[in-house]
């Protein structure tokens, strides 16, 4: 379905003058403007694990290096590992003649069949949480470096505050340089001045400088004499996925803690209202607020591809569907004051009348009787080819003005929109205010037919 909607042939102009297909756009109810992902502020709601769907506060996530502690990925192919249980019999400690069955657990990849037994990890007696964590050999060095940079950031910030004390608020981002907790620094506020004197003296000298490596040992002879054991050697991707160890042999790969994902919400940059906010619970697929343009702006699609010839009028059938539950009137106009003249490569004759669209009626969508509807709307059969539910097919006449390349047209679409925001409802008498929205639509109708010299021009 995503590929079906995301064809990139019909594009709408965002308020920032960029073109996107309708499924990529949001409609801000308050500004009544289309917003693309660049015109919205992306905010992190909460990190969560995509496998166990556990929420984690961002502080804790940072502490755990944005990884889930219970879920693992296969180090070979990257799929999620599943826990398998086996029963293991061992002699009973009380009575050596009897054996007791004990459940043991190991992890296996369902895709490439890798198991924790492959690398010699012993089976665990509990299902989760007891897998050994490898100690990073450079952990001390990294933490001392981090510590140092944090102090550096603090000093820098304090110096900056001293210089530009007046316009402090605009430089909040600077505080989080080198991972120094912005919130923590802000809480300290002015105290950074006083603490500065003590930290400043700490920095230089304490950090052991990195050692430059200028000679490497030559490759051992085996690399040239032995055949390459590709099935036992890790690939670059394997090594990059564990940067702290970078094992060279498959048998040294350990399960990787699953990366956390982010629930994010989007906010209109102009009015700061939310345009998309997911439900807090990660297992829910619902949204609290979802103002994607696909749910509010009528969608135009190309019904069938047509063959084009230069300077020849071709009839193209487009479909228009109404996503809202109310009836909608749509009118199409040419764009007159067009600055973006590069785009258009054809003349287009649009329907002059307003197009009436029925509302989207989910339950009865399967059993619509087309014939009765056509009478109801008194359609002109020359313009409206068919009508089915909330969708119509209408014709436009396209005359390409170029002799090669894609046939591209543009027009303005005006449509009704029921403004149901609280502000709009208060001003009117409970009835949602109907406003007209205008969107510029750009379409790529496909290439011009190649002239075939063997076929006589009919």
């Amino acid at each position: 379905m995503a590929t079906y909607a995301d064809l990139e042939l019909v594009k709408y102009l965002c308020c920032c003058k960029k073109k996107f297909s309708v499924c990529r756009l949001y409609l801000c109810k308050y500004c009544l403007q289309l917003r693309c992902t660049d015109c919205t502020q992306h905010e992190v709601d909460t990190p969560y694990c995509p496998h166990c769907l556990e929420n984690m506060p961002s502080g804790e996530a940072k502490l755990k290096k944005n990884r889930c502690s219970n879920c693992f990925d296969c180090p070979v192919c990257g799929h999620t590992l599943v826990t398998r249980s086996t029963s293991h019999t061992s002699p009973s400690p009380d009575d050596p003649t009897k054996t007791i069955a004990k459940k043991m657990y190991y992890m296996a990849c369902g895709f490439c069949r890798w198991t924790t037994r492959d690398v010699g990890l012993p089976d665990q007696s509990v299902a989760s949480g007891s897998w050994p964590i490898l100690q990073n050999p450079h952990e001390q060095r990294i933490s001392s470096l981090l510590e140092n940079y944090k102090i550096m950031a603090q000093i820098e910030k304090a110096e900056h505050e001293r210089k530009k004390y007046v316009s402090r608020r605009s430089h909040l981002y600077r505080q989080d340089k080198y991972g120094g907790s912005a919130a923590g620094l802000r809480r300290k506020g002015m105290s950074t001045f006083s603490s500065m004197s003590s930290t400043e003296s700490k920095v230089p000298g304490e950090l052991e400088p990195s050692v430059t490596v200028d000679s490497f040992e030559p490759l051992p002879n085996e690399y040239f004499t032995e055949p390459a054991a590709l099935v036992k050697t890790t690939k670059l991707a394997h090594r990059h996925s564990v940067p702290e160890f970078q094992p060279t042999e498959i048998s040294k790969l350990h399960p990787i803690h699953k990366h956390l994902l982010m629930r994010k919400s989007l906010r209109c940059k102009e009015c700061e209202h939310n345009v998309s906010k997911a439900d807090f619970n990660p297992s829910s697929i619902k949204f609290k607020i979802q103002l994607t343009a696909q749910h509010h702006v009528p969608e135009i699609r190309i019904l069938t591809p047509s063959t084009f010839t230069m300077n020849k009028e071709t009839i193209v059938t487009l479909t228009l569907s109404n996503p809202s539950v109310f009836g909608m009137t749509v009118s199409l106009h040419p764009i007159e004051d067009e600055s973006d003249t590069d785009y258009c490569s054809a003349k287009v004759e649009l329907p002059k009348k307003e197009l009436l669209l029925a509302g989207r009626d989910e339950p009865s969508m399967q059993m619509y009787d087309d014939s009765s509807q056509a009478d109801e709307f008194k359609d002109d059969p020359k313009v409206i080819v068919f009508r089915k539910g909330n969708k119509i097919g209408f014709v436009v006449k396209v005359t390409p003005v170029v002799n090669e390349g894609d046939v591209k047209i543009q027009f303005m679409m005006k449509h009704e929109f029921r403004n149901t925001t609280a502000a709009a409802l208060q001003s009117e008498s409970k009835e949602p205010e109907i406003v007209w929205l205008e969107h510029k639509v750009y379409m790529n109708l496909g290439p011009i037919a190649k002239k075939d010299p063997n076929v006589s021009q009919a």
Partner: protein
Amino acid sequence: MASKKAGGTTNPNLKIAAGAMVCEDCELIGDITIGSRTVIHPKARIVAESGPVVIGEYNIIEELVTITNSSSTESGNGKVLIIGNNNVFEVGANVQAVRVGDHNVIESKAHVGPKVEIGTGCIVGAGCQITMAEQLADYTVIYGGKCERRIQRERPPAQTLQIDFLTKILPNYHYLKKPNTQPASRTAVKK
């Protein structure tokens, strides 16, 4: 339904050991020997035109699997295709191998070409194709869209429970071919 086909009781060269579950609705062409406790699902196809096919014990051959002896282009001239014990051929697998050892898993829609020899404990992943002439080392795993390879430490577990389950459930819904040899024929399977 399958009686129209060349298989069925009309095939004089078909040897099914006692305890094997061979569904009536599968296509068995030519000289085929099936070991005891092997389960062959309906719509499987085993073609032994160019040479005999010998299938060992405790194998599972699922729906739409094609096993072909393609050792020779002329019919009846080829070598014997020996399939060992405890192998699983998942739905839609296509196997034309020279030899298949024991404890292998050929996953769904995998393709094993005519010059491949499969050893012991190998897994050919879903949709993977091996077409080069080669001898798969024991415990090789082939997986993913790029047919990446890895050597595993243990062979895949035997599907004894699954065979028990199928032996119980298959006769309820399918007609079976009757075994015509005693389990003694297993000696023929072992090399």
